[in-house]
Structure formats: structure tokens, C-alpha cells
């Protein structure tokens, strides 16, 4: 089992750092899955996470100049590592002006991801900073726990989110008043964010958001959608902190931001950037 990768381009490095920063804000510990073509940051829906789960996928070719991976076995050519993304974020934080960043899986005293940053210096040789980030290697028999989450049968499929900055400031203020927030949306491009306490209830209405068609494999989803009343709202009540974390963690405006809602069960957020997709599932509170 081997893994080595190298980033030389500063723009790629900064982009990668920002993604790691976003992941670090969403999960204290997560799983990094490495395949030949892609990297995945996975948070599975343990009770410890408040039931929220995350699936973030990026193509390695968009970030790394060199990427070599040899998985556990030939027919299972993947590596699953458990790590604290905040460590990776810190390691990359001071690499803003690096000449190169190399990442390698090593096992000196324990399995580690060694991040070696080569920095320019006035002397003849570069400065090298190494960060040894401890990781846990996840054995193959547990890989099933980290499969891509099934997309459930949504009541409201795909509504574009409002401008994230606006949504973030609304949610931040609501967070001061309540621990739970209700998100409801319909297929006419309308979304409401509601909180209700003994003293006060606040609702923010968004309209004309747009509903892109849900492209499912068998095409039956969209015909079901046509049968439904497009004005009826599907709502779910979720932990407001989780939503706020998701919105606050976005360091770059996504190209597309969407969500799906299953009435009273789960809200599925999809944030798409050019080279990375992030899905975040927040379960509804009973």
C-alpha cells in the first residue's frame, strides 16, 4: 500500500487548501478515500456527528502534478484513511508560497501522512517543513461503511439555494434565537427558512430560486414530479448549527448550490465547484 502525490502549482495548492479548510469545518474526523483517479472525503452518519454525513469528491488530476497510488490489493486498488482534517489544514496553511508540496503515506512509528512543504529561501537550499499527520488505516472489511450515500426518494428535488452569503447571514442570526430551523421548499422555486420559539417566530422567504430538472437514471423521478403539486412545500426541521457550519465553511462561492428535501426526514445539500463536489446530508429532528 503506497501513496505519494505532489502539487507544484500554487493556484492548485490554494484551491486544495480551501477545500481542506471547508472539510475541516464540517468534520472533526473523517475518512479520506484514495483511488487512482479521485480523492473522497467521507463522513459517515454516526450518531456522534449528530447524524450528519458528508461526501466530497475531487478528481486528483485537477490538483496534483504527480499522483501515485497502490491500494490494498490489486482487485481493491483503494486506500481508506481516517484522519483529522484540521491537521491537514494547518499543514497547508503556511504553504502559501511553497515551491512544492509532497504528500506521502509513511509508517515510521505509526501510519502518518507526511506533508513536506518546500519553501523558497535566500540560501542555496530550500527550507523544508514536514508535518506528520497521524492517520488510521481502515481495513478492507470496513469499507462498506463508507459507501456513497444512496440518494433517497426526494419530495422536493433540486431547488437552487439562495445566494449563500445571504443565507449564511440569515441563518447566523436565527442561530441566536433557536437551536432548530425548518427548511421548506417547493418545486416553484420558493424556499422558506423558519424558526419558532416560545417568544418569537421568524420566517425568511426566498422566491424565484429555480428548480433544475432532476436527472435520474431511469427518468421516472421527473414524471413523478410532474404529478405532484408543485406549490406544496416539503419541510424538514434540522439542527441549525449543522446548517450554519456548512454555510460558514464555504470559502469559495460554489458554481452551483442545490438542495433536496425529504419531508421530515433529511435535507441533502449539493455544492458544486468546477473541480469538486460536496454533498452534505442533515437528518431531520423528530
Amino acid at each position, binding site marked *: *500500500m*503506497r501513496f505519494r502525490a505532489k502539487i507544484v502549482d500554487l493556484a492548485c495548492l490554494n484551491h486544495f487548501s480551501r477545500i481542506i479548510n471547508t472539510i475541516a469545518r464540517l468534520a472533526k*474526523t473523517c475518512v479520506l478515500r484514495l483511488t487512482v483517479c479521485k480523492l473522497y472525503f467521507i463522513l459517515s452518519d*454516526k450518531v456522534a456527528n449528530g447524524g450528519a454525513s458528508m461526501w466530497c469528491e475531487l478528481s486528483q488530476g485537477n490538483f496534483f502534478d504527480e499522483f501515485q497510488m497502490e491500494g*490494498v490489493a490489486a482487485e481493491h486498488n483503494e486506500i481508506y484513511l*481516517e484522519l*483529522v482534517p484540521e*491537521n491537514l489544514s*494547518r*499543514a497547508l496553511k*503556511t504553504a502559501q508560497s511553497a515551491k512544492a508540496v509532497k504528500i*506521502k*503515506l*509513511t*509508517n*515510521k*512509528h*505509526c*501510519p502518518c501522512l*507526511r506533508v*513536506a512543504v518546500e519553501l523558497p*529561501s*535566500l*540560501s*542555496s*537550499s530550500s*527550507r*523544508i*517543513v*514536514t*508535518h*506528520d*499527520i*497521524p*492517520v*488510521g*488505516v*481502515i*481495513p*478492507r*472489511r*470496513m469499507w462498506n*461503511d463508507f459507501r456513497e450515500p444512496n440518494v433517497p426518494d426526494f419530495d422536493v428535488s433540486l431547488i437552487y439555494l439562495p445566494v449563500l452569503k445571504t443565507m449564511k447571514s440569515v441563518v447566523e442570526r436565527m442561530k441566536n434565537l433557536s437551536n432548530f430551523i425548518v427548511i421548506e421548499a417547493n418545486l416553484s422555486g420558493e424556499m422558506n427558512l423558519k424558526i419558532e420559539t416560545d417568544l418569537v417566530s421568524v420566517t425568511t422567504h426566498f422566491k424565484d430560486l429555480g428548480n433544475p430538472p432532476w436527472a435520474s437514471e431511469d427518468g421516472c423521478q421527473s414524471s413523478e414530479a410532474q404529478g405532484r403539486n408543485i406549490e406544496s412545500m416539503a419541510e424538514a426541521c434540522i439542527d441549525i448549527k449543522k446548517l450554519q457550519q456548512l454555510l460558514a465553511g464555504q470559502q469559495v462561492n460554489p458554481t452551483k448550490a442545490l438542495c433536496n428535501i425529504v419531508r421530515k426526514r433529511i435535507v441533502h445539500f449539493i455544492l458544486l465547484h468546477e473541480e469538486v463536489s460536496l454533498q452534505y446530508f442533515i437528518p431531520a429532528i423528530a
Partner: protein
Amino acid sequence: LSRIGDELYLEPTENGLSLRAVNSSRSAFASFLFAPLFFQLYEPGSTGPDTELFRCKVHMKSFLGVFRSLPSLEKSVGKCLILLKPRASRLVLQLHCKYGVTKTHNLAFQECERLQAVFDTQRCASRLCAPARVLAEAVVHFPPTLAEVTLGTGPGGKISLRNYVEDEAEPSKMMVTELWLAEDEFQSVAVAPGSHITFCLKEFRGLLSFAEASNLPLTIHFDEPGRPVVFTLDDTVLEVHLVLATLSDLKSNSQSPSTNSVSHLPVPSDDFADDLESYMAAMETSEGGSGGPPSPTFPLRTPRPAESDPEEEEEEGAVPGTPPHKKFRSLFFGSVMTPGRPGLATTLDVLAEDSDGEC
């Protein structure tokens, strides 16, 4: 100085005004000596055959309060007069400002014994001198909350800085950051090979920002672990010393490597030892059993019962032996002596017990 202690010691001498501070555990001491030439007027007072030059200490916060906003001071203050009035028990700080305004601050002081740390830079086996900027750029890679750092020497004359991980903490859970500087980044390097010391970063950062602001090169004098490390800045009118205690290292280097043993860490090359094959083999062969070796880093969601604590199970290759005895000794105040050494205390001024009885 305020990053080190809560009290400012003022000691006028023939060679200039010395400002000093020490921390509560007596493991950090700093002194700034301003030569007479630094001042427009310098009168240390007169000494008689049986009187010494007066010295005192004041509350750091009171003193700093007078000089609170540096930008506005620079704009409005023309002169500053510092006057010790022993009989009135007051230290007078008088700011002569524009438009005929004079601000006079009378600070209460306490008389004190001479505050002097025991150190001799000539006796230090190793010395490094670097521009403050280089060291500041090195320290930035460590988180602001990091307490201790290990400075070491490596092959090829390289100098390393590494965060110190306490052995009491789970060593395989801590991220370890190491920075290597080439010899030619320093203005001078005269170090004993294989030497290393561990000291507190917090007080050092304070001196580093001062050095950066005044654009002065910083010299580091150090010796064996346990002996204090001395940082000095030199200028025509200013002499600065920062003395920090270092971690004494009771483990000899010949024992099995621990995460803190700098002498065992090679300079990173392109080809790291990478031995996950045997680790994975161990995990795969136990598949189908009650569960393989636990993750050394995190308790995984294994089907095992809750009482199995991964921390208790010694992973193969884990560090045996007792952790090093961590003691930042305040020996440079002459209060703690190593056995067998001649009593230095008798020849030096030792700080008298201060008001809260700590010594």
C-alpha cells in the same frame, strides 16, 4: 518583558538602565540594558561606600499603561523623564507633550533585591546567529498555541525546529511538525553535533517580535538539555538577554527512539521509509477474527465490545520505557543545584523570596 512577568524590575547601573522581568516559575528571565548614550540625560545616582544604586520593581501593567498607545505617543510626546524618588516611594514618569501639556505619572514601587539569572554564554557549547526574519519565518509554521519547541542539529549542518510532544499525550495522535534550515541561512553556526534543546515558545516569540521590529540579528547560545538557553540581541546602545530553562533529558540517546529524540530523525529526502506492507498484512490476516489490531490513532468503529481500549494495547513498535522526567528547572537562579557541581550559589546574588513566598 510583559510577556514574561507581571513585574518590571528597574535597575540603574553605571553601564546604563537595566529593565528586567522574570516569570512566576522562574524559568524565564529577560533583561534589556540601555546604555547611557541611549538617553539624552542619564544620571544613575550616586553610590557611597555603603550604599548601592537604588533599584525597584513596579507592576508591569502600571508601567505599560503610561505608554499605552504608541502611535499617539509618537505624535504628541516630545520628551519622557523617568525619575526615581526613593524617599517619596514613587517612580515618576513624566511625559512632556506638545502644546505645553505635561503628564506626570507617579507609580508606586517596591524595593527589591537584584534580579539576576545565572548564565554564562561563554560556557555554552553551541551558538547560532540568524537574522530575526529567518527565525520568525521558521516559527510561523507552528501553531500559536504550541507550548514547547525543540531546536536541534542534524546531518549536513542543518538546524531543525520541531514541536515538542509530551510523552504523556498519546504520541501517535499528535501531529508533528519539523522545519529544517540550512546552515547558510544563519549568519554564524558553531554547534556541537547532535545537540538539541527544548524550550518554551511563548517567551521566545515575544523577543522575536522585538528583534524583527528592530531589525537585529538574534544569537542563540545553548548547551546540554537542562542547561538554560540564552538569546541575545546586540546593538550599540542596547543589550538584550532572554534566558529560558530547557527540558532536561534523562533518557540517553542510545535507547530506542521516541518521537522526541531528534538525533534519530533523518533529514527528509525523497525516499522515505515506507513500510505499510507489514502493517496491512497484520490487519488482513486477522480478518474474520474478532477484529484486527486497533488503529493506533483513533478508536475505530469496530464490532468489538466497548471496553477494549486501543490506548491500553501496546502497538508493536510502541515506545517502551519511562517517559523522560519533565522538569523545567529554575536552576539558573541558583536555587536548584545538580549534585556534584561546586556550589555556585555562594558567589552569586540570589533573588530573595518575593512577596508570595515563591522561590
